[in-house]
């Protein structure tokens, strides 16, 4: 009887100490004015949250993040689906295309962000050199308020495209051939018809799953912000997780940082719960 508790004990104690109590403590810290290192603290109720939503920097970061996610998710999922459909539609070079599209997802993003910085260098970068060669206008991509956030979105799409593709490829493989044959008998013969009547409905659960997973990854974007823009210029590319980092660990405004953390946690938990629900449905299907 107690063997089970003995075996599960260490994991459960660590889970408590490293996951559950820290999560609860975030809510407690968010209700205080604590600054890391200070000897005293006072409970301030919801003051941190009202300060947060009155703070133009936080509001900018929240709006930036929502806009960023709203662009990155459809672009990543759409491109990932297109690439997966094309790869799956024929045998030739299948493994090669799959591997290339998946590389950015594996590659250390911190190192690749440094490469993106070189690509986007105002005078030496490939991007501006190519644009100039075609007589197109160039930009100082990472230092311009209009381009900094879109550039981060492009990097996020580039990085997550392969992830979406891999999930779609697995879903496409699971579509039974008989359904295509049946659709063909029913006269749905052209590629587009088959896509409409068979493929898309059958991979719909996978699509919902990919949408949420990519949304979570987009909300968690951090490395390129820290390395390339620091949220600038003038907060134009400030995102939630980077703001959380700056408030908590640069400014050491611990109570305030905890309030940002609570907002972040609620968003991610809502998405994860929605995802668990989809997964549950997917598993119950025959």
């Amino acid at each position, binding site marked *: *009887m107690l063997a089970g*508790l003995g075996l599960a004990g260490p994991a459960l104690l660590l889970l408590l100490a490293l996951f559950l109590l820290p999560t609860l403590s975030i809510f407690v*810290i968010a209700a205080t004015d604590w600054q890391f290192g200070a000897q005293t603290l006072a409970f301030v109720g919801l003051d941190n949250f009202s300060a947060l939503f009155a703070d133009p920097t936080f509001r900018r970061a929240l709006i930036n993040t929502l806009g960023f996610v709203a662009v990155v998710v459809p672009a990543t999922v759409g491109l990932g689906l297109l690439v997966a459909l094309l790869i799956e*539609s024929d045998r030739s070079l299948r493994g090669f295309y799959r591997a290339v599209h998946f590389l950015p997802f594996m590659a250390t993003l911190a190192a690749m962000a440094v*490469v993106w910085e070189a*690509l986007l260098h105002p005078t030496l970068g490939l991007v501006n050199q190519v644009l100039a060669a075609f007589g197109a206008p160039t930009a100082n991509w990472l230092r311009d308020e209009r381009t900094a956030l879109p550039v981060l979105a492009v990097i996020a799409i580039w990085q997550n495209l392969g992830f979406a593709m891999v999930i779609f490829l697995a879903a496409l493989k699971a*579509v039974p051939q008989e359904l295509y044959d049946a659709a063909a008998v029913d006269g749905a013969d052209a590629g587009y018809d088959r896509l409409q009547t068979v493929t898309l409905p059958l991979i719909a659960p996978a699509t919902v799953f990919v949408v949420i997973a990519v949304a979570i990854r987009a909300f968690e974007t951090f490395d390129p912000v820290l390395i390339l823009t620091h949220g600038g210029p003038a907060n134009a590319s400030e995102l939630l997780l980077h703001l959380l980092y700056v408030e908590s660990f640069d400014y050491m405004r611990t109570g305030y940082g905890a309030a940002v*953390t609570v907002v972040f946690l609620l968003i991610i938990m809502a998405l994860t719960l929605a995802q668990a629900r989809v997964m549950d449905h997917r598993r119950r299907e025959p």
Partner: protein
Amino acid sequence: MRRHPLSWPARTGRHLVLATTATLVAVPFVWMLSLSFKAPSEITAGFSLLPQHWHAVENYTLALTASPLLRFLANGFAVCAAILAFQILISAPAAYAFAKLRFPGRQALFALVLIGLLIPHQVLALPLYVLCWKLGILNTYAALILPFVVSPLAIFLFRQFFLGIPDDIIHAARLDGLSETAIVFRIMLPMALPAVIAFGALSVVVHWNDLFWPSIAITSEHLKPPTLGIIAFRDQERGSDYGPLMAAATIVVLPLLAAFLFAQRWFIAGLNAGAVK
């Protein structure tokens, strides 16, 4: 869509689109390699893929000597290995208990694991920072490892796999006099090898690539993992001489990409397994 041979215009169109997207996706990698082969004079002299004078040896030598890059890589290997070892050592017995043993509060305790799955790790950074500070381990290897020693995902995945292993095997092992711990590590874990490898691939990718927690927990140069190291390298090598920096980036990215190309199957299995999260 499958097993219907495509007409030749469709085949050509497929290759046109996929070759275009593949090229765009590959641009950063190609540019990184290209710059890592070039001398400073050529980097400022307009774009060509291959250098006129190979400067690769100089760039890669400088990357390895101008900063403690090898040290960063060794830190990365050591920390990833330690994290994975602890994760398996601590999660596997729990997974076995949840899958095969009866004990009071089993259901409620498993709910704690599921709640753990819901929590994004970045949320824990602030309390874990305070915890590491209290323990006096900030800016040590221990700070890089401790927050990740238990993995709710590992418990969840291993439990799923263990559920599929017949009880008869466990009864037989008990008759042979094996302890419960021995059953976990000598019977269950080897049988669950596919799940272990898939989880291992996922864990190594996540922690090799992690920048968020190391940038909070580590300040000393000699403790930095590759992600922090590459930033330190960039910050000291300003100017237009991108060669050594791109060589360093190549060296940091290479271990995972090489591992992926040799064992694609396992990485993709890990990804699909991680998709339960």
